[in-house]
């Protein structure tokens, strides 16, 4: 075959029709990432259309963990539904309880006693730290760094010990209920918590030295999966993903609940590389920015917990007579700032004790939508990096 033409150009690389003999061409491959895959954080299934190491398209498929969580809410009383909210975002049970409890309180016009409110804030922020620790650790794992994962879980374990002391559970707490919290703090809990906060503040710099500012880690995550401000707003991203694109939006500041307006804290947002201690090469909206926002938020949460524990008032921790309350014929929609973004609950009542409609707006579900856009034309190794930086919990995506 003397007249065979050998040529390789970007056009022929992915062109199936140009099957002339001798043409150098590669073929696309469809590959299933998940639902059982080490770095899809649960049962997310992403179908990748790849050309060698390049991922041309990544389409997330969901629904492997659907448990009718919303429908159950229309069959049980609100205080009975609280444990189900734990199982949505199972890494941030406290925050989920808080969101649903706030919705019920606003629907029924219940006043939470000041002690209950303060305890709620402290626990929600502790759980924010615990959730961000898991996010940080598994993100390191996605990048192939095993050790930060165990450090993060070591500290998370201590938070879980604190939770266990207060409510007896380590994962699904059901501690925050409509009207306040269902138990008072045990003796010397505040001192234990303060001891932990002292210890934990020193550990954040450890994570930074080991992972955040690691040259390889920065090279792997900066300029990868960049989400522009328009995309972030257009896709309805919330939480660290939104702030990682440089938008200062946090419900704890913009629409405070549970008395967050009385606390002094900052909303960390992403900044371009070179400012502050952010390494060169980082741009606003990339994976490293989203990761970094979580690290900074942990410091802010520590600040909030200190203030809450410092001003812990005496008195009731739960409003009286919270069982068998009749829900008025009305509907409310309440959003709170979950570790992953805005978790909203729509609750409608019909003068009975059981809600006629419960609907949740999950931050992970909304944040996951950006995957398809962010994973276009990236390397295969970038896909775990992007999905990990969005930090989804499949329990809450599928509900």
């Amino acid at each position, binding site marked *: 075959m003397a007249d065979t033409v050998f040529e390789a150009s970007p056009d022929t690389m992915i062109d199936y029709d140009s099957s002339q003999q001798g043409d150098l061409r590669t073929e696309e491959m469809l590959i299933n990432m998940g639902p059982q*895959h080490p770095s899809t954080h649960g049962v997310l299934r992403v179908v990748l259309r790849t050309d060698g*190491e390049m991922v041309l398209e990544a389409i997330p498929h969901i629904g492997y963990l659907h448990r009718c969580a919303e429908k159950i809410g229309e069959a049980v009383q609100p205080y009975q539904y609280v444990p189900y909210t734990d199982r949505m975002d199972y890494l941030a049970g406290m925050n989920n309880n808080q969101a649903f409890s706030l919705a019920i309180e606003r629907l029924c016009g219940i006043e939470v006693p000041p002690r209950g409110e303060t305890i709620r804030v402290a626990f929600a922020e502790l759980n924010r730290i615990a959730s961000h620790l898991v996010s940080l650790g598994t993100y390191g794992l996605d990048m192939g*760094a095993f*050790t930060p994962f165990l450090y993060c879980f070591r500290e998370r374990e201590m938070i879980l010990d604190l939770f266990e002391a207060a409510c007896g559970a380590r994962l699904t707490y059901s501690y925050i209920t409509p009207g306040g919290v269902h138990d008072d703090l045990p003796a010397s809990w505040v001192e234990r918590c303060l001891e932990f906060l002292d*210890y934990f503040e020193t550990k954040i710099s450890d994570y930074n030295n080991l992972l955040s500012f690691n040259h390889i880690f920065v090279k792997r995550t900066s300029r990868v999966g960049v989400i522009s401000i328009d995309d972030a707003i257009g896709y309805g991203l919330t939480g660290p993903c939104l702030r990682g694109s440089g938008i200062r939006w946090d419900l704890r500041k913009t629409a405070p609940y549970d008395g967050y307006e009385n606390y002094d804290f900052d909303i960390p947002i992403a900044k371009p590389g070179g400012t502050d201690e952010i390494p060169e090469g980082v741009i606003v909206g990339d994976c490293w920015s989203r990761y970094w926002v979580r690290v900074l938020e942990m410091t802010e949460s520590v600040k909030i917990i200190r203030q809450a524990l410092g001003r812990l008032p005496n008195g009731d921790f739960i409003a009286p007579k919270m069982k068998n309350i009749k829900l008025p014929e009305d509907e409310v929609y309440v959003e709170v700032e979950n570790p992953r973004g805005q978790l909203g609950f729509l609750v409608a009542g019909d003068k009975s004790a059981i809600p006629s409609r419960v609907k949740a707006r999950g931050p992970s579900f909304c944040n996951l939508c950006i995957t398809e856009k962010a994973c276009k034309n990236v390397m295969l190794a970038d896909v775990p990096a992007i999905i990990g930086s969005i930090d989804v919990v499949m329990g809450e995506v599928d509900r």
Partner: protein
Amino acid sequence: MRILLWKLWMGYRIFGPIIELLMAMFRPFAVAMYRMGGPIVAQMAGMILISAVVAVCVGVWAHAMLFGFVDESILATAASAGVELTGAFSYVSPATWGLTPSQIAVQLQQVGGVAANMSGVAQYLLWPVQFGIVRDLVGLGALMGLFNIIPVYTIWWERKVAGRIQSRLGPMRVGGWHGWSQSPADGIKLLLKEDLIPDGADAPLFRLAPYFNIIPSALAFVALPFGATYVFRELDVALIFILGVLGVEVLGVMLAGWASNNKWSVYGAMREACQMVSYEIPLGMALLLPVVTTGTLNLTKIVDAQSGGWFHWLVFSSPFAFIGFIAFFVASLASCKRAPFDLPEAESELVAGFLTEYSGIRWSFFFFAEYAAMFVVCGLAAILFLGGWHSPLPASWGAALGDAWYARGVKGLLFSGPVWFVAKCVFLLYVQIWIRWTLPRIRIDQVLYACVQVLLPLTMLMLLGTTVWVWASTSECETWAMVTAITRYVLGGIGLMFAFAFPAIAAYGFYHRRAMVGNLVQDAMPGS
């Protein structure tokens, strides 16, 4: 051919169930042995471990002494006395014949002492030792023992070090003392596991692939010297042999990836191929530095050129060798698929890469090969750059000890012996493990960039520099001699600083661990 295959098949049909039955009988036997023997072994764990190490060392030493005795006191004296060799056919040189037992007895009488008194028995015991094939079998046994022991205990050690790095304990239960028999227990488990071959896999290739991995890494030990005389075959091209043999491993990985009929495995294989073409050239370039400096490919001779203590090690001979050593170490990480270059089996991206579909004994073959290859490249680094089996003390200090057998033992421990080679390998292995549990993984394009655009020009430059340096050193110029001496002592001083700083920092960390890690961790973690 078809008849042969038919016979094989019929043989399998007849003997297959018997083999299966034997296997089935072996399983409860193994479990019962473990249940009964486990507690006893756990009680005596430390003693067993120490006595096993001592027995291995004494065994190797005794064999070396025996071979030396036969060579020097019997064969050489017999040859000089003009004894006709009529005993048997010699393996090493077909033209010669060995001594008969009675001729050996005559020689033993001449040696005198215990040897003469025991010559009645010893003549028959020593008779086989004079033949190369017997010695090779003994050496092969030692080699296979090493090849089994080294990966098993490297894995155990990796798990212990990783545990400590991650504020865990690592294996603590199996065998008693620090889980010392965790890896053998894992090995038995893997042996007894089902050998799965996935549907649609290319079964012959799938079965074949692990051997392409494990045989080359075993072959590398053939030419790897542990000491001046402790080498199975002293090859003049040992360096090229080891490099070439380790290169074959890539074939096994690619076969495994392709034959598995799994897309993730194919990714692993392609990444390995991609990585191989990028690290192999800088690795080869870095290996050329000692060759250029010493002018030989014979590993024993390269080590001989580095005798004379710490400052005479090749890594300190010139700034180019110093940087070349670091480049070699980085490239060797890539060649062993170790983090941060563990892309072919990147578990968070490719599930397990080329290993995804493997299980049981075949999976453990890949692991054995990987850890053995780690030891081999660490051994190469020690031999080529870090003085091989020479200790940091100059051997001339031991001249006063004389040449008695105990003096030779002391010299072996203090100045040059296999123990130093193993110690250096273990330290380099530790560094590899340390790096693995600290750094994230890099991306495939970054591997290519690092190897082709950074390491390759760097090693080429170092090779050029070394060549010029060696060429300049051939001149008789006294100023240049002074320059080389100063370089040697400056670089050696930097090395000494590292050598002292490392244990010092470790000791500081150990004594201040409560302040560094935090009270909460210290109180919560057992044993730390």
